[in-house]
């Protein structure tokens, strides 16, 4: 999927911060997400993921900075903001004593743009009877009912907080497939906070990594992957001799494996020091260097995310590169 950068971003955070008492739950968070993107929001527990989502939907007000939804500032307790965003909270809360039909009537009563047709068609497709009480549904069915309420609100931005955490593997697949389908159908922008990195790799074309309340990484997945490389170098090669920024280095007996944040050109230049033209274009395939013991591989999604998560002290993406392609 390509993103037209000139369009108004679906979601934009500008130096967003939220303080709880003396501690910052989220700080200095700046990024942009284009319309139609499916964004993975990754971070350890307490990283600020739920805070970011709550600030976006206006359930919390920022201590500093702001969030913009489709070019307009998100405000707490504002009907315009609320109409632009659907929020599916963690553990998909529903009124347990309600029937599915009651839940939909609840949605219709509180949302002028409610799409009854969509809600009922989805229940029919999923074979969930409207007359059933929520508490008698399985966890997967409850998650689907909650997702349906979020979708039938017909807001252009959908926020999902750990939507599959309580689901079995099959229900996870079904749920995520439905999210992707909904996004493709109506150009919905989706922000998914999740611990399941493999799930996000299949799903997302955009990535936000939060760690300790700070944004470590933000951008299109393809750009982020292209902006990183895994180098294999002799163990005695100093970090200073490596291209770009060292994110993670693992030393073994003779070699070191290093994940660096560096544009492809810099990686190639390092590998072919002293040579005028590299023999093959870099990036997609591994490059075997002329320098003995040096090699480069493209970074994998999970490898990249885990490397950042393991190193909260790695400073956030430099200001100039935030929210845009690192390459």
């Amino acid at each position: 999927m390509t993103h037209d950068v000139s369009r108004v971003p679906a979601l934009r955070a500008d130096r967003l911060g939220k303080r709880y008492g003396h501690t910052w739950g989220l700080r200095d968070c700046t990024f942009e997400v284009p319309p139609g993107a499916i964004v993975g929001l990754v971070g350890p527990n307490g990283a600020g993921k739920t805070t970011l989502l709550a600030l976006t939907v206006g359930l919390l007000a920022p201590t500093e900075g702001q969030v913009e939804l489709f070019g307009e500032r998100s405000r707490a307790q504002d009907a315009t903001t609320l109409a632009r965003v659907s929020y599916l909270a963690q553990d998909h809360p529903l009124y347990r004593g309600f029937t599915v039909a009651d839940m939909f009537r609840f949605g219709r009563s509180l949302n002028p743009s409610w799409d009854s047709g969509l809600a009922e068609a989805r229940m029919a497709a999923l074979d969930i009877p409207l007359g059933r009480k929520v508490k008698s549904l399985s966890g997967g069915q409850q998650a689907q009912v909650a997702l349906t309420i979020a979708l039938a609100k017909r807001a252009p931005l959908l926020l999902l907080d750990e939507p599959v955490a309580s689901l079995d593997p099959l229900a996870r697949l079904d749920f995520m497939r439905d999210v992707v389908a909904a996004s493709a159908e109506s150009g919905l922008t989706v922000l998914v906070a999740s611990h399941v990195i493999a799930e996000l790799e299949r799903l997302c074309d955009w990535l936000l990594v939060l760690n300790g309340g700070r944004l470590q990484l933000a951008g299109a997945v393809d750009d982020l992957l292209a902006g990183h490389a895994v180098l294999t170098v002799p163990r005695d090669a100093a970090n200073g001799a490596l291209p770009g920024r060292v994110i993670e280095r693992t030393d073994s007996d003779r070699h070191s494996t290093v994940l660096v944040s560096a544009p492809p050109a810099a990686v190639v230049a390092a590998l072919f020091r002293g040579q005028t033209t590299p023999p093959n274009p870099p990036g997609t395939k591994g490059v075997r260097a002329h320098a003995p013991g040096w090699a480069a591989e493209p970074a994998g999604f999970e490898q990249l995310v885990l490397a950042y998560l393991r190193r909260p002290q790695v400073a956030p993406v430099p200001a100039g590169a935030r929210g845009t392609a690192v390459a």
Partner: protein
Amino acid sequence: MIWVTWRQHRTQALTAVAALVLIAVYVLVLGLWARSTFNSDAIGNCLARSGGAGCGGTISSFLHDVQGGAGVPLNLVLLVVPGLLGATVGAPLLGQELERGTWQLAWSQTVPRTRWLVAKLGLIVAGLVVYGAAVTAVVSWSLSPLDRISVRTQPPQFMGEGLVLTCSLLCAFGLALLAGLLLRNTIGAMVAGYFAWELCLGVALLLTGPLQPFSVTKTIPCAGVACTAASTNSVPPVTGNFGDLVNSVTRAGGHLVVNYVPASAFWPLQSVSGGIFLAIGLAAAVTAVWLLNRRTT
């Protein structure tokens, strides 16, 4: 919002109506029995003939029977049910949403949460007012034979007639609503709301007794037996008016110095007690709205 409020509170509403029916049946039986006793004891005739003089014993035993015997459950109902009912309705309104996490669902729809809360409060308060008025009506009807001969500035009549019952219902509701927001727990909020309401009820009861703000002192001339026999328990009371509550009688020469709460204090006292209940309930509800509005920090 009307449907949403109804759907979320219909179990409570139906329970409250069931409670109303039970109370009504009991109060109806009590009222019919009180009426037939009132007639068979010929109290009405006695009042018409002599203003109650000469049938003091009959009147005393009638009042004793109605208020002390068959009416005891009514006292309990009036001293427990408004708090229980108000707390049951108020506690889950915010407490359950916060306890179960459904607030995230409720407040992320297109209706901002303050509007959501104010709409719900409006509808529920209207329901409680109607309910309180209905209970007041049946209780007042049941106790109406007593109105002419008993002290209405005392429980049970004071708690069951006029404004106090409805206001105390609203008070318990507001307290439990606020407790739900603070405790984020339904049962805890119910208990806290109920006991906070009992404190308010205690104040209201003190106002009908030791802290009575409307008692007056009057000097009545008397002679002979009327002087020596006069006491706080005289029937009819030494002030000559059945509705008066005589606190003390002292003899001074040919006079009686009487401290009493006149029957006419009923409505002023109702206003004060009801006003206290209402002000506390309103303050709690306004605090809840205010806290919810700024709970974005």
